[in-house]
């Protein structure tokens, strides 16, 4: 059984996916690395991005961070502010 997880997209990742927000079905106990694998499989264009980090509730997360459906999850492609 999967649960929907909301993922926010910005910059190049939004352009490649064509949406600024995705609902990603993940099984309970999924981690950041599972989300990334899921998205890379579903949107192979994402693998062309130099690097993609994941933020959970506005903080950079580790690959093994556990995800909860209530989390605000965001993909963070290479930043270029300033």
């Amino acid at each position, binding site marked *: 059984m999967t649960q929907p997880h909301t993922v926010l997209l*910005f910059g*190049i990742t939004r352009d490649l996916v064509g949406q600024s927000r995705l609902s990603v079905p993940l099984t309970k106990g999924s981690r950041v690395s599972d989300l990334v694998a899921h998205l890379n499989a579903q949107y192979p264009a994402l693998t062309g991005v130099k690097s993609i980090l994941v933020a959970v509730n506005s*903080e*950079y997360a580790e690959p093994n961070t556990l995800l909860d459906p209530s989390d605000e999850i965001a993909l963070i*492609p290479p*930043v270029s*502010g*300033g």
Partner: protein
Amino acid sequence: MIALTADPIDFSSAYHYLQTDEAGAIDFFFGVVRNNTQQRSVNQLDYEAYGPMAIREMQKIADQACERWPILKYVVIHRTGVLRIGEMAVLIGVATPHRDAAFEATRYIIDTIKQTVPIWKKELFADGEVWVNATP
């Protein structure tokens, strides 16, 4: 003071905000949209931010700077949206008693912003567009 804004950055109010009787030195850094990058002619830049996280990351950087240097006041403002050549994309201002700390802290803040804050810029050329630094 930390801010993300879609409006032009008002450096005059930033300067007045920084003033304090103990300040002997104020350093300001302005990042400005310039008309070219790697020999290609830029028309404008489009800045996008993940707002709440960008504010949070900028606040962390400012807090780290305040731990390392005797900062009396600081201001960090980043613009979002479409900017034309000559417009200010980012303003960092730091007031300290002496100038070494003002220079070092300002530089630390802008250098670190460019590494960690979730803001992205797209360069708009006459013949296309590209998200800066996004692809190998």
